[in-house]
């Protein structure tokens, strides 16, 4: 039960960060799509930029965890997938997803 409370808290804390990050993300999208997406443009912004790397790494971590906890709750309610085993599985999926995101951010930093 304490674990369940911690999952909830993790989801809300990540939500508060994501609220800010998604605003930034949406604004960046609007700017980036003007005149079409181009790899050169994206790479020019991100290559060697520690600030953006840190932002995207934390963003990916928050999004991965937030999404996985959300899916855990939905799967519990709609599919009856409950219990510590499923919790661990979802947490693993969340961290794996986040890892992929951080890998991508790293790739863009070094591109």
């Amino acid at each position: 039960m304490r674990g369940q409370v911690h999952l909830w808290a993790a989801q809300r804390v990540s939500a508060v960060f994501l609220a800010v990050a998604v605003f930034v993300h949406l604004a960046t999208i609007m700017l980036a799509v003007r005149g079409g997406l181009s790899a050169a443009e994206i790479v020019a912004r991100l290559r060697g930029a520690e600030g953006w790397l840190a932002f995207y790494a934390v963003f990916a971590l928050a999004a991965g965890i937030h999404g996985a906890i959300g899916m855990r709750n939905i799967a519990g309610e709609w599919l009856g997938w409950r219990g510590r085993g499923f919790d661990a599985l979802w947490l693993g999926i969340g961290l794996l997803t986040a890892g992929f995101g951080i890998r991508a951010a790293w790739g863009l930093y070094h591109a």
Partner: protein
Amino acid sequence: MRDRRHPAYWGFVLHRVSGIGLALFLPLHFWALGHAIQGEAALEGFLRFTDNWAFKAGEWGLVTLLALHLAGGLRVLALEFLGWRARQKDLVALSAGFALGAGLMFLLHAG
């Protein structure tokens, strides 16, 4: 059939559906960006591959879902952490408006 036609319920349904959509998209997004690991050219190749109306429509959908989930999430946080109990109906309407606006902005800029 039980009646669930009240604004906060619609808010919940939109939040859940957009959340599922985003959670499923997230790994794809990270995988796509991960092309950058192989350099700028690989990313550019992927971006050219997705540069057509079908992917544009999908991107528009995702931007709208993201804005919707953001605004709906702010409503939940306001209720949970600030105890904003009044004007929930307006907040749901505001969320929908914000999402539509973000979607339109995307279309204008991408077009």
